């Protein structure tokens, strides 16, 4: 029974590898194998490789000064963080919001078996994430310090202890996420903010990793003494990897005790949690006079509501909203220094810094691609705009307008920041201010056209049109390609005619292209929309 349930759970997690949501059918065997190879390459090759490099950098120096325990403490800490945070959202949905709870509970399956299957699923996912850190860490240690029976047995036990701690933390954090999310009003915005904070923290530590490793190696003795003095338990935990049997016994006992406690607590509450509807406090309707809107205004409001209602949509198609002003502020702080460096580095290319920054702003603008999945996101609701007395032209223009609105102002702000910090002629500065917003308009219309040419209406999860559709890929990478061409061509040949004519030519090109795309939308696009 448990095996069957577990198989179902894992099939659900890896559904995307077996099932093509775009074509609404099972993938071929070859495609399934390829997807799993890609998954292994990503997990083992990219993530595993990254942590192997880190382990190689830390292990030998710390082992040489007899502080391998600090090495294990650091690697286990990362493994626990990655495992717990990597699987917390899965725990939340898998344990507390599982859609098939009612179905499973109506079948002749003991509740404990259902719960065990869910927990094993969470354990395996957590183990997968923490394993990409801890397995390389153990292997590197065995290579550096030498293989002994005690080290291998304790290493395996350390892996079990860490993955069990990940399970415990995932359950507690998943419960906290479930509780918090029931109380939140603007879930999508908060999800976006939390996700961005995680992404920011990830990149911060990623770029600082080398400095941190060096700092730990140089000050290992000081940090070691501090840990031993202030948190002896952590020291003992690190000792497990070195083959310290008392430490193994203590932590195995503690972890087993906590696991038993978790099982008891969850056994008592699982049925109640699994069958709760998660209903939030009902919003009270207060009658008030509505503000009248034109059909275009109504469509635009609807498109904005669609955008802001989904964290997936905002995160995947609206990052430019934050990145453009961030870039502008960064340039206000560091721009002059960078200008000086680039004027020396690229002395043969006059105004190259201005043109490259302009290309950079266009590239960031292209990260706002709300228009590309917009037609596809109509999905099963497509009958609404098609049956209402609103022209397809209005519908399509509203879709493009959302991207323009969320991109043009941030792009203009960033462009003004660029103009303030670069050393260039007034003409170049003026064009630097004009070109990115013009590109943003072009990009919005380009995305709408691509979205209309490559619609994907039969989706079951909105992430399919938002993240996995051809339209989004073409709009994003196509947009980036244009930006690279714009920046690259200046370095190749454009600098010969000078920045002012070069920027002017591209401004005109983007304007003409935008007008052509608008014309296409208003004529052929309208027909294409009617035929969807």
């Amino acid at each position: 029974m448990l095996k069957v349930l577990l198989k179902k759970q894992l099939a659900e997690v890896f559904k995307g590898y077996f099932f093509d949501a775009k074509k609404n059918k099972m993938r071929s065997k070859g495609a399934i194998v390829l997807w799993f190879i890609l998954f292994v390459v990503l997990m083992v090759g990219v993530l595993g490789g990254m942590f192997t490099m880190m382990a190689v950098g830390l292990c030998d120096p710390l082992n040489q000064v007899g502080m391998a325990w600090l090495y294990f403490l650091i690697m286990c800490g990362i493994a626990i963080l990655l495992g717990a945070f990597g699987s917390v959202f899965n725990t939340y949905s898998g344990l507390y919001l599982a859609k098939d709870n009612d179905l499973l509970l109506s079948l002749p399956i003991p509740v404990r078996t259902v719960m065990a299957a869910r927990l094993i699923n969470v354990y395996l996912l957590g183990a997968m994430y923490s394993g990409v850190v801890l397995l390389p860490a153990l292997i590197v240690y065995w290579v550096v310090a030498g293989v002994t029976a005690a080290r291998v047995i304790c290493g395996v036990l350390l892996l079990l202890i860490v993955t069990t701690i990940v399970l415990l933390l995932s359950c507690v954090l998943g419960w906290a996420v479930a509780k918090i999310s029931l109380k939140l009003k603007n879930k999508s915005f908060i999800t976006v903010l939390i996700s961005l904070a995680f992404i920011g923290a990830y990149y911060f530590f990623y770029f600082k990793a080398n400095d941190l490793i060096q700092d730990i190696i140089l000050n290992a003795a000081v940090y070691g003494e501090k840990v031993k003095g202030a948190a002896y338990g952590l020291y003992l935990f690190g000792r497990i990897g070195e083959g310290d049997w008392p430490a193994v016994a203590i932590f195995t006992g503690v972890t087993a005790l906590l696991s038993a406690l978790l099982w008891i607590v969850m056994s008592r509450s699982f049925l109640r949690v699994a069958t709760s509807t998660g209903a939030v406090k009902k919003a009270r309707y207060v009658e008030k006079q509505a503000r009248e809107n034109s059909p275009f205004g109504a469509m635009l409001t609807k498109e904005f509501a669609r955008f802001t209602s989904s964290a997936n949509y905002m995160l995947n198609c609206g990052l430019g909203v934050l990145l453009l002003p961030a870039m502008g502020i960064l340039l206000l702080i560091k721009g002059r220094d960078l200008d000086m460096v680039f004027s020396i580095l690229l002395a043969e290319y006059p105004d190259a810094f201005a043109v490259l920054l302009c290309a950079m702003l266009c590239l960031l603008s292209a990260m706002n691609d709300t228009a590309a999945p917009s037609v596809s996101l109509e999905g099963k609701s497509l009958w609404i705009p098609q049956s209402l007395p609103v022209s397809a032209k209005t519908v399509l223009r509203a879709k493009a307008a959302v991207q323009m609105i969320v991109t043009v102002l941030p792009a203009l702000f960033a462009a003004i920041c660029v103009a303030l910090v670069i050393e260039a002629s007034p003409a170049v500065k003026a064009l630097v201010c004009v070109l990115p917003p013009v590109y943003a308009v072009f990009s919005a219309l380009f995305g709408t056209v691509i979205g209309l040419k490559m619609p994907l209406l039969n989706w079951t999860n909105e992430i399919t049109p938002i993240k996995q559709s051809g339209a989004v890929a073409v709009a994003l990478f196509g947009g980036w390609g244009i930006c690279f061409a714009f920046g690259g061509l200046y370095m190749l040949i454009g600098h010969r005619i000078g920045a002012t004519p070069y920027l002017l030519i591209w401004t005109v090109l983007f304007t003409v292209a935008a007008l052509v795309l608008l014309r296409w939308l208003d004529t052929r696009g309208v027909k294409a929309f009617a035929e969807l």
Partner: protein
Amino acid sequence: MLNIEHLTKTYGEKKAVDDLSLHIRPGEIFGFIGHNGAGKSTTLKCAVGILHFDAGTVTIGGKNLADDPLSCKRELAYIPDNPDLYDFMSGIKYLNFIADIFGIGADVRQERIRHYADLLELTGDLAQPISAYSHGMKQKLAVIAAWIHDPKLIIMDEPFVGLDPKASHLLKEMMRQHCDKGGAIFFSTHVLEVAEKLCDKVAIIKQGKLIKVGTMEEVKGDDSLEEVFLELEAE
């Protein structure tokens, strides 16, 4: 009010609707029945301008749907078989969105929303997101959205599916009142008892072709509509 002449719609090789002609006059409740896949929904979607058709004409209030789709759509309201509404909106926002598209003034829409939402007992849920609605609640919201702009013609695909008995009863009354005021209703249904009691006229479609049309008395004679329908289906 609605004239469908020689309508033909094909999906690849298959003729979903084959040379179908129907005339719905003001004041009529017109029922459209047929087995699953007979072509009912396709006909309705062609009549509201969602689907393009291969041959024939559709005129609404004397205007040709192909030539002037927006004018035609201003005259009608459509409720699909599955009310896939904008889940990301609240009920009241959806109603205001529809009212904006039809240019309904703030005072008028407020009064109509109050009237119909109270009638269908949905007022208390209007601030809730549509994603939290049950199928029946979505159906009620779609009904209010259809009635909010007081259309001349209402086209509905299986409108009673998902509605509780009270709401079904209310919808039938709303349909009758709408037609008594000079409006027209064209709807498909599998519930033959409802069609028999409610409809002034009925059409039966089989494999895309119209096999019987007329007033209820003309179609069923002394038999029940169910008997006539099953007999025609067996032929």
